[in-house]
């Protein structure tokens, strides 16, 4: 494949360098018979689809935080026009965030072998001489630094963050969000420049049979080894191999989004066993100990919920809260790290009933929720009026028929349909209705 006559100055270099196959700048250095336009095009088109889904689910996940509602929700206050699409995050369907973020993380993990294979398939281009054939080509190669560096940066920060390995330089939210935009700018340009050729390559392969030599544009031929080693696997076999890697990662990850499948997620951070047994046994994002919550500040004598609004401030003990009308809702915990629980059965006071206590009888407003937690990124969180108004939004006191345990937010926690986990504040100390900062 691709051993026909060559033309152009790249070919001239090829002729000069051909014999010196010790240098990666020589086409002869690259020996794998797998590299070629068909292999790269298939992987490229898979990534085109996959990364587009990652980008969109990532943007949607960002909107789920309602960053434009309040500075306490916004880890990227200088986003400027990059938040152009933000919208009021809905509460229907109640699994919306669980689905979006589960797809984002699970698909991201699944695509890692495809990304690695794609980068492997085009690595000879990194060493192509001359470094640039034209101004346009020079710009394209600079753009590839944004593309390759960006893809690796986004995948690496994401994979590290879900494993709580915070070694990256700064807070995850701005790095992953702004990094995504830098990467996506290069990704779109790359797609516009390459997709037509990739589609042509696949169409030609389908028409003429993958392994028959066919005339190809010079750019595609660059990838084909001029002196390939004898094959150890066919191109199709290699593609199955990449797909097998994806399947293995998918199979050992996807279970962390379902209580019934969790034990199948053998390597995912929230796969395997639940942290406990019984009604409160389900997955925990941050324990009470990690958040620095002590029993002394949450016991019945010490803890009071402060509810503030235009008609004044109300202080309620947990016993007094339990005497208010209690309601139930079945809602999941869904984390930005991509894991989630199945629906848990929460019981507590409706947020809109608490709003009514302090002067908002008919029209619940936004609310600022403050936790007992003294440090940590989301110890304060703002909820929008539509989230407060939803009858399923609770200040929960019980889960699955038992009082909350400290790790699930005892004495009381917020639970809102479709909201990201960190906005479901645990160890609630104060709720200020009509304010968001």
């Amino acid at each position, binding site marked *: 494949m691709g051993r026909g006559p060559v033309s152009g100055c790249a070919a001239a270099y090829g002729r000069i360098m051909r014999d010196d196959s010790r240098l990666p700048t020589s086409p002869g250095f690259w020996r794998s018979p797998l590299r070629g336009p068909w292999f790269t095009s298939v992987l490229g088109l898979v990534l085109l689809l996959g990364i587009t889904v990652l980008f969109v689910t990532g943007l949607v996940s960002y909107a789920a935080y309602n960053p434009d509602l309040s500075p306490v929700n916004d880890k990227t206050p200088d986003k400027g026009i990059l938040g152009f699409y933000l919208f009021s995050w809905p509460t229907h369907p109640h699994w919306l965030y669980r689905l979006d973020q589960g797809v984002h993380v699970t698909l991201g993990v699944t695509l890692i072998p495809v990304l690695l294979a794609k980068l492997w398939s085009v690595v000879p281009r990194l060493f192509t001489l001359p470094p640039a054939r034209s101004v346009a080509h020079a710009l394209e190669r600079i753009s590839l630094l944004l593309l390759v560096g960006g893809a690796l940066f986004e995948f690496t920060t994401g994979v590290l963050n879900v494993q709580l390995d915070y070694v990256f330089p700064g807070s995850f939210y*701005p790095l992953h969000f702004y990094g995504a935009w830098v990467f996506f700018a290069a990704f779109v*340009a790359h797609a516009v420049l390459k997709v037509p050729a990739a589609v042509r390559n696949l169409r030609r392969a389908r028409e003429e049979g993958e392994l028959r030599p066919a005339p190809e544009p010079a750019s595609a031929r660059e990838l084909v080894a001029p002196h390939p080693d004898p094959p150890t696997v066919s191109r199709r076999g290699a593609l199955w191999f990449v797909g097998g890697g994806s399947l293995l990662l998918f199979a050992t990850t996807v279970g962390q989004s379902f209580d019934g499948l969790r034990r199948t997620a053998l390597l995912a951070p929230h796969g395997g066993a639940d942290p406990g047994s019984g009604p409160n046994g389900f997955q925990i994002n941050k324990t009470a100990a990690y958040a620095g919550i002590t029993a002394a500040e949450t016991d019945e004598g010490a803890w009071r919920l402060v509810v503030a609004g235009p008609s004044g401030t109300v202080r309620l003990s947990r016993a007094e809260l339990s005497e208010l009308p209690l309601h139930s809702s079945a809602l999941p915990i869904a984390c930005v790290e991509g894991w989630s629980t199945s629906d848990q059965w929460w019981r507590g006071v409706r947020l809109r009933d608490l709003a009514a206590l302090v002067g908002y009888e008919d029209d619940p407003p936004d609310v600022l929720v403050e936790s007992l937690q003294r440090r940590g990124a989301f110890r304060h969180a703002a909820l929008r009026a539509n989230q407060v108004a939803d009858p399923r939004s609770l200040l929960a006191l019980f889960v699955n028929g038992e009082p909350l345990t400290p790790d699930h937010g005892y004495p009381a926690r917020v639970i809102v349909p479709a909201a990201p986990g960190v906005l479901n504040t645990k160890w609630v100390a104060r709720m200020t209705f009509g304010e968001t900062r």
Partner: protein
Amino acid sequence: MTPLRRPVIGSPFQILLLACSFALAAYAGVRLLADDRPGVALWWVGAALLHDLVLLPLYAVADRAVVQGLDAGGHRRWTMYVRVPAALSALLLLVWFPLISGRVELRYRSATGRSADGFLAHWLLITAVLFGGSALLLALRLRRATKHRPPAVH
């Protein structure tokens, strides 16, 4: 040598497209670099360099060593039986290294209320299944090949 026949500017469409892409990337990049300029730049460029100049050459050399080693014994066509389990096991280790290595164990235990001990054990067991399964497949294939081989003529 072929004289330079192409225009040195190249496609104007490509230049416009990339200029647009760079402008958007710079708009986001200014914000990306705002807090820790050298750190983020190092991670961005370092990720590309580390992959292209360290990780990829490392696994390519390892793969070539396996192929040549098998080739020397006349077993080249069995390469995939070694390559697949080794690569899949290495892939899992690469992706889940922080959990498998135990480097986040303290934070993980304290945050999630679960032990991180299981990850190394799971990875080792999956690795055992991958290599064992591959060995089994190879053995079956060899057996079938022996059965179907025509009897030697004396």
